[in-house]
């Protein structure tokens, strides 16, 4: 289910503006990788290139290669729609579909592409996904209620359930806890710990404690100044990044001296 991601010489553009420059990194399967760095350094932008969501923005484009198990996502023959089915995404703000019930939200991805699913299979999948997202016990009595009626933390777990319902290989999380309270944040962090048994997880976070708590490896991004492209400064085991980084900027950042 989980796959290895390899990024080679990736440049990310918004029209003519080079937002992220020259990223090389490899992400192992069944691991949690955290991207940290100051605001505007391109970590979210880079994350969105891993499932081709970057190009949804008009004028946005990418140079270089992203290989998932050796297959380049940016090969001209590759359909971005299929990429996104393999690489799921959870966003910064919880975004369940407001017009759908909890159950319909979980099944939203499965029902795309005209796929039919029997009622019993659907119920099984809903339960499995919601259990997987640690939400089942809280919502099992109100599966037909609107998803927007849940609390922020529950909505975010609903979004995770929706993402894992399509059985992706990789899950990208773009600051999934930044709109949540500490208790909900803890619930999501526990969930990430469980999910990594099955999925490759990449998480962008502004919270360095969170990165050190949940991730196996950490990538530190930085920019030289406004208007300059973001770069990957250092990529290593999380313990190394937080205790003994090899670059001065990383040490300054993780010790709170800037950013």
């Amino acid at each position, binding site marked *: 289910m989980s796959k290895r991601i390899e990024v080679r010489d990736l440049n990310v553009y918004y029209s003519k503006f080079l937002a992220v420059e020259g990223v090389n990194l490899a992400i192992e399967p069944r691991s949690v990788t955290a991207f940290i760095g100051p605001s505007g350094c391109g970590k979210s932008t880079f994350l969105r290139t891993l*499932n081709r*969501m970057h190009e*949804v923005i*008009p004028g946005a484009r990418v140079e270089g290669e992203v290989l998932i198990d050796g297959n380049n996502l940016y090969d001209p023959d590759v359909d971005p*729609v*299929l990429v*996104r*089915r393999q690489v*799921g*995404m959870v*966003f910064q*703000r919880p*975004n*369940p*579909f*407001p*017009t*759908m*019930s909890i159950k319909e939200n979980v099944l*939203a*991805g499965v029902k*795309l*592409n005209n796929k039919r699913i029997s009622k019993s299979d659907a119920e099984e999948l809903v339960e499995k996904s919601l259990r997987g997202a640690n939400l089942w016990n809280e919502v099992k009595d109100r599966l037909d*209620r*609107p998803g*927007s*009626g849940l609390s922020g933390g529950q909505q975010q777990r609903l*979004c995770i359930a*929706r*993402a894992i319902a*399509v059985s992706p290989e990789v899950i990208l999380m773009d600051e999934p806890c930044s709109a949540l309270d500490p208790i909900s944040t803890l619930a999501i962090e526990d969930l990430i710990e469980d999910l990594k048994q099955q999925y490759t997880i990449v998480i962008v976070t502004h919270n360095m404690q969170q990165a050190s708590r949940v991730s196996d490896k950490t990538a530190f991004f930085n920019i030289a100044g406004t208007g300059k492209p973001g770069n990957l400064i250092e990529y290593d085991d999380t313990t190394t990044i937080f205790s003994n980084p090899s670059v001065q900027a990383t040490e300054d950042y993780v010790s709170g001296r800037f950013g």
Partner: protein
Amino acid sequence: MTSAPAPIKAKLRIGDLVFSRSAVFAGSMILVTLAAVAVFLIVQSIPAVVATTEDASILKTNFWDYVGPLVFGTVWAAALALLVALPISIGIALFISHYAPRRLASVLGYVVDLLAAVPSVVFGLWGIGVFAPALVDAYAWLNEYLGWIPLFSGTPSATGRTILTAALVLAVMVLPIMTAICREVFLQTPVLHEEAALALGATRWEMIRTAVLPFGRSGIISASVLGLGRALGETMAVAMVLSASPVITFQLLTSVNPNTIAANIALSFPEAYGLNVNVLIATGLILFVVTFAVNAFARWIVSRRKEFSGAN
């Protein structure tokens, strides 16, 4: 024992006072206007409703027999117009909001708005001079090959001035307002929801179906209501295009077509006298009621699934 403290009164500020009073005044004006129109219609209608052919020469038997075909024609033409205009306007709106390159989209938006500025009399002239003659052959074809469908049966009109032509002209007339509303609502779709759909592996059309259309649903209904309201009340274009007789028929292509209330009032009023005027005003009351009912129905649809609307 302490006595309860006196409730704290907010300080009255002159600006607040002026604003709240003017808002109340503006709000009540709409009720007053509506009530005034309703009272006028009802008072003027009462003699007509009980009139017979001896009192008002325009009536063949009684008022209800007179107004029946008109109500039918009004609703029938408006419904046909809506049926044609709704999918087209949703299509144009989606093209402008989600498919067209930005520059083309803004040009198209202007063109559609411009269509709304064309006076209805011009649409009438166009309908009678260009559109109706152009449709004669198409109607003959429909009648020949699809005549087994009751809608297309009968002898096709030689002038093309049928209820279908009138409905098509109406469709063109209601298209701009409906497109404009749909477009605005579609543009409001939160990017968050669009990206949620795309990230699940939705194609562009699936993204529109899962995120944009459900979000725009109430807007689409509002657009339909406004369009329908305009189609129900449209006078000039129908009066010019349609060659009408007092009948109820679902046949779309023949030269025997039901008239609409508004067009009938416009055509009959210049020659009306005495109680005939009241009869025409009474048909206006009926139109008022029909339009009101359509609005109420649409509001009910919108409110039915309120908690799923995305407003919370």
